[in-house]
């Protein structure tokens, strides 16, 4: 339901989710905080959804800002 064409950044907490949304948006990358889809389980119930074509850019931004994250899931 989250839709093909998207990827999800899985994070350890809501604070991480908010921080990553802030820095990713500041880079002009379109994203949205959504509940973690049922089929994916994490410690945090919120993930950052973004277009999968922005994956590289997003990874760079997250790394540059030293934000801890669990993994990135690309929706097939």
């Amino acid at each position: 339901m989250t839709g093909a064409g998207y990827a999800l950044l899985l994070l350890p907490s809501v604070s991480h989710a908010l921080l990553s949304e802030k820095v990713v948006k500041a880079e002009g990358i379109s994203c949205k905080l959504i509940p973690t889809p049922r089929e994916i389980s994490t410690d945090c119930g919120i993930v950052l959804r973004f277009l999968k074509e922005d994956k590289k850019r997003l990874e760079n931004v997250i790394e540059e800002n030293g934000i801890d994250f669990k993994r990135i899931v690309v929706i097939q």
Partner: protein
Amino acid sequence: MSEIYNARGLPCPKPVLMAKNFLDEGKNDFSILVSGSDQAENVMKFAHSRKHSAEIVETNEGFRVSIGAPAPSMKHVEKSVQKQEKTISSPVVMTITSCEMGFGDKVLGEVLIRALFHTLTEMDESPDTIVFYNGGVRLTVEGSPVLEDLSALEKNGVELLVCGTCLGHFGLTDSLAVGRVSNMYAIAETLFSAGKLVTV
């Protein structure tokens, strides 16, 4: 003889109150002049809820709502009734009274309410009506983090009622970006006719 009453410039619930009083008195051929289209729609909706015919005509100085005798066979009334028929027995109504979901932590509450509206757009069963009042109206104005989801819900037929008094109180009347300005008559009727009332 059709009587015309001037309610131009009167605040939000007054024109509806005027219509209510006239209908209670048994009048069934009169017009009410109002300044805004929202007010005109609210008066018309109220008349329809009493099964009276009503129509809006735009005039040079605002809008005229002409209310006639009960005429359930009239086309627009039928249409309105048909639209409501599906859910009239048990409409699901949701109330949003702040920009946060739950109490305890403001930041968490704001994230949760964004997650909630996203989820509503994906659910098979969405509410029939969402009523926004007090701090909840902030979610319906420009800059709201849930505008995209609310627009999607509205497109899918969810009615979004936004308290006009509340918008005015926060100075946000001109910033409304989604939903329809409503008054306490419509809001109270919606709440009390709900089959299921969901408060978050």
